[in-house]
């Protein structure tokens, strides 16, 4: 009986902790579902199956479709028209029988009957310029969109098709069984838009000399993805959202004016026909140049070519293996340079094409940025598997396609440029080249999950930016580190602390988010950076991230495949992080609520006395106990301040009776005891990174794993025993957790000099 009472009492001490002994009045509270932030994601995740394993890897029955293209394309520079004839060989690898195919017609977003303008909300202006009014309400607008001339099967018979805006359904003459192939052709043309004044991802920029630089993409009817998760991915194209496409092999012949310089996805098959002898010589040099780019077409040569306006034609022939799309750029005005990059035992070409308006910035940096990016991404995932990566300078836009991308960053007319232009250009080249990995090779459904390509890519972009800054310090001087806009945790605080009604969870279809850039790019990118630096550590994170990349190379991953792989390869339960960071709009806000100082004594304190009395026990019923007395409690007396552990009789007796002289020598002798209470005001759990500073000026950092919050969501206590007095506690001292309110992160409360005050102070000084 006595023993039982004793145990209960001890359990009671332990359970209540030091200061929390107040008994609550019981109210009848209704039951509830499991709302714990650490609850596993079984309800949110789809059930693993034969196609997608619980480990996050492709399952034993994983399949994907294949679409191979043979295309003849002609660019009519004079009439700004693009014409094409394509033959698609589609292979059904799915276990399903297909009765029809879906083909994407992105250009129809620009058609006169496009519904894209109709979903833009607009307000009536009280007054408008006449010309503006005409344009907006009376004009016909640009005559864009595909003109589909024919859709035929291999025998030349017409196929029945239906166009629903940006999607075309083609009826199959016979259902396709597993393993069946179907070959069909489409002949089409469309008017090319001005991508600068009309804003677009594809189109031309017109220069004062009458020349145009074409960056051509999303330009041909493309097979939609059919897979085990969504069936046909035929969600309409509204303009902002991107896309997912089927892998396949491409054979593309592009006919352009004979004085154009052209590059595109794939390997050039007829270099001798389209290059001059001099260009071939320079190309051979470039293939051996690993440090500096070699000019293939110089500015002088491009300026000369710009005067020609040849009516002759030239056909550039390419082959590309295992790509999900095709794009090219063509102009008389292009300057062209290249260098080689060694990745493993392979050489890859880093390439840039730009009009003279890009210089000197582009000649100095574009190709080096490409090369550096390929090296960084290869380290984080796998060696870049394609033969080349091209950065094309297009005014005002950045957009990615396999092996080729468009990037902004234009100096002023006198050739000078601001830091904003320079870092804008570095950042966009790194980002778009990086997209070769996500989603061109690790091919997630962009239209559904923006974060899977943009967010993951933004994360690796941050690493590549930092690498680039280290490799080329002269490019970022006088900065010591590359000033990345997205990646560092504290840069996301502004977004996450905003109005909750205007924030969507990351796990939202891209088109339906309020702040696309922050939601699809910054927040997921930052989240992965926090995972890597703060939660998992680089070693575990990098291994798992690499595993994800290699499991899904040239495949179609879903969000769960990423989440599951990160846990599967690291033995870390991250469901709480996925839930909090990706599935909710919760925020991090952790602070120091209270710090209490305690002294050790052998004299029983009031708290224990009360407990004993309530249970009818006497002091003699207890074994020798050590008591903690809070500085501000009635048990405290001033003499305790100077007492040491040696003065605590119960403790000394225990030590003498139980420990050998040697063991006694090694005992620590803490003299200061603190109970620190951490509060969690945000819904998102996070490890507590606490930095304790002591009276002798030394400091130590303790990271309490996130699981500290597992059963107590609002506050947790920690006892610190030390032989030195604590003078300061700072939570998250390096601002690495995206804590939205750092005013409660310091004890004793100390207001940091805010941005305003420090600015004002400096401006007065100057």
């Amino acid at each position, binding site marked *: 009986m006595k023993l039982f009472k004793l145990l209960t009492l001890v359990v009671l001490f332990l359970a209540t902790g030091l200061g929390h002994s107040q008994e609550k009045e019981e109210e009848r509270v209704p039951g509830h579902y499991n709302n714990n932030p650490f609850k596993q994601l079984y309800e949110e995740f789809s059930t693993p199956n034969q196609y997608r394993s619980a480990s996050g890897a492709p399952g034993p029955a994983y399949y994907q479709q294949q679409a191979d293209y043979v295309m003849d394309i002609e660019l009519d520079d004079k009439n700004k028209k693009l014409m094409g004839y394509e033959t698609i060989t589609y292979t059904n690898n799915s276990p399903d029988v297909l009765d029809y195919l879906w083909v994407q017609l992105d250009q129809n977003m620009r058609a006169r009957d496009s519904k894209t303008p109709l979903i833009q909300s607009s307000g009536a202006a009280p007054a408008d310029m006449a010309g*503006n009014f005409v344009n907006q309400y009376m004009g016909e607008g640009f005559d864009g969109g595909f003109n589909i001339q024919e859709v035929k099967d291999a025998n030349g018979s017409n196929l029945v098709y239906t166009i629903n805006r940006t999607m075309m359904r083609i009826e199959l003459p016979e259902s396709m069984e597993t393993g069946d192939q179907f070959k069909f052709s489409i002949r089409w043309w469309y008017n090319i838009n001005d991508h600068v004044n*009309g804003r677009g991802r594809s189109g031309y920029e017109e220069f004062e000399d009458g020349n145009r630089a074409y960056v051509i993409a999303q330009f041909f009817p493309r097979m939609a993805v059919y897979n085990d998760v969504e069936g046909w991915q035929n969600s309409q194209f509204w303009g902002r959202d991107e896309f997912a496409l089927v892998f396949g092999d491409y054979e593309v012949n592009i006919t352009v004016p004979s004085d154009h310089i052209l590059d595109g996805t794939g390997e050039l098959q007829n270099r001798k026909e389209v290059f001059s002898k001099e260009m071939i010589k320079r190309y051979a040099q470039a293939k051996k140049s690993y440090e500096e780019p070699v000019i293939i077409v110089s500015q002088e040569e491009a300026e000369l070519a710009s005067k020609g306006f040849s009516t002759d034609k030239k056909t550039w022939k390419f082959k590309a293996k295992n790509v999900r799309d095709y794009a090219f750029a063509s102009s008389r005005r292009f300057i062209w340079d290249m260098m080689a990059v060694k990745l493993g035992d392979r050489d890859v070409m880093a390439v840039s094409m730009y009009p003279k308006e890009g210089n000197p910035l582009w000649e100095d940096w574009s190709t080096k940025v490409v090369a550096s990016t390929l090296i960084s991404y290869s380290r984080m995932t796998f060696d870049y598997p394609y033969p080349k990566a091209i950065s094309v300078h297009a005014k005002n836009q950045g957009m990615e396609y396999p092996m080729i991308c468009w990037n902004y960053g234009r100096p002023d007319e006198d050739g000078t440029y601001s830091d*904003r232009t320079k870092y*804008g250009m570095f950042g966009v080249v790194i980002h778009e080249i990086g997209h070769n990995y996500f989603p061109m090779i690790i091919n997630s459904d962009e239209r559904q999950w923006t974060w899977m390509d943009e967010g993951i890519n933004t994360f690796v972009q941050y690493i590549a930016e930092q690498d680039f800054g280290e490799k080329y310090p002269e490019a970022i001087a006088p900065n010591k580190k590359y000033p990345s806009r997205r990646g560092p945790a504290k840069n996301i605080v502004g977004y996450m602390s905003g109005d909750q009604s205007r924030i969507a969870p990351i796990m939202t279809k891209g088109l339906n988010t309020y702040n696309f850039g922050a939601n699809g790019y910054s927040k997921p990118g930052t989240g992965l950076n926090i995972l890597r630096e703060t939660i998992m550590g680089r070693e575990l994170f990098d291994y798992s991230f690499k595993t994800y990349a290699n499991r899904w190379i040239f495949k179609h991953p879903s969000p769960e495949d990423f989440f599951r792989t990160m846990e599967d390869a690291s033995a870390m339960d991250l469901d709480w992080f996925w839930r909090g960071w990706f599935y909710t709009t919760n925020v991090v806000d952790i602070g120091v609520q209270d710090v209490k100082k305690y002294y050790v004594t052998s004299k029983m304190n009031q708290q224990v006395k009360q407990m004993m009395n309530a249970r009818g026990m006497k002091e003699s019923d207890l074994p020798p106990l050590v008591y903690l007395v809070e500085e501000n409690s009635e048990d405290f007396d001033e003499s305790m301040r100077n007492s040491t552990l040696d003065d605590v009789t119960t403790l000394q007796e225990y030590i003498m009776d139980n420990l050998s002289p040697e063991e006694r020598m090694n005992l620590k002798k803490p003299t200061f005891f603190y109970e620190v209470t951490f509060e969690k005001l945000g819904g998102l759990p996070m490890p507590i990174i606490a930095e304790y500073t002591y009276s002798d000026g030394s400091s130590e950092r303790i990271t309490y794993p996130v699981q500290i919050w597992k059963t107590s969501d609002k506050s947790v206590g920690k006892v610190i025993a030390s032989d030195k007095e604590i003078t300061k506690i700072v939570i998250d001292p390096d601002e690495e957790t995206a804590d939205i309110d750092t005013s409660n992160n310091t004890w004793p409360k100390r207001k940091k000099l805010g*941005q305003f005050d420090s600015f004002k102070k400096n401006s007065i000084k100057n």
Partner: protein
Amino acid sequence: MKSNLKIIVFCLLIFTFFTGFVAHKFYVSTTKVEYVKERKSIQIISKIFVEDLEQLLQERYSSRVQLDPKKETDLDQSYLLNYISQKLKFKINEKEAQLIYIGKEYDIDILNIYFEIEDVDSLKSIRIENKILIDLFPEQQNIIHFSNEKNKRNLILDKNHPTGLLNFN
């Protein structure tokens, strides 16, 4: 000049979001407003994308305006301050307040502009009108983060609701 403006306005209306990667992708500015009672001061920091602001000043005043710390002229600065003072207005306790310009700093693609309102003994209400950039970008959202010792409040101001009121009674 005029026709250039109309084309841009028209196009932006439709295709503002039309790229795979832009620096900000969405037209947003944020303004931090903090009332520091012991100093009777309201501290204001507006963060605005330089690219948008430069484009606006070029359309509105002169195509030569450059918001680049290396090139900016006194005239450019006066255009800027003139514009901001027309578009950013505060009423404290329903009385027009004077914004004292403290200074500005470039953070690569973002411009931080500092203002202060002095002699605010007590704060019963604060009415903020922020029409910055709305005359060129109809989608522009100007977000206000207000804080004092006790409160944190947000306002989202846009074309249809350019003014917001915070009451502290």
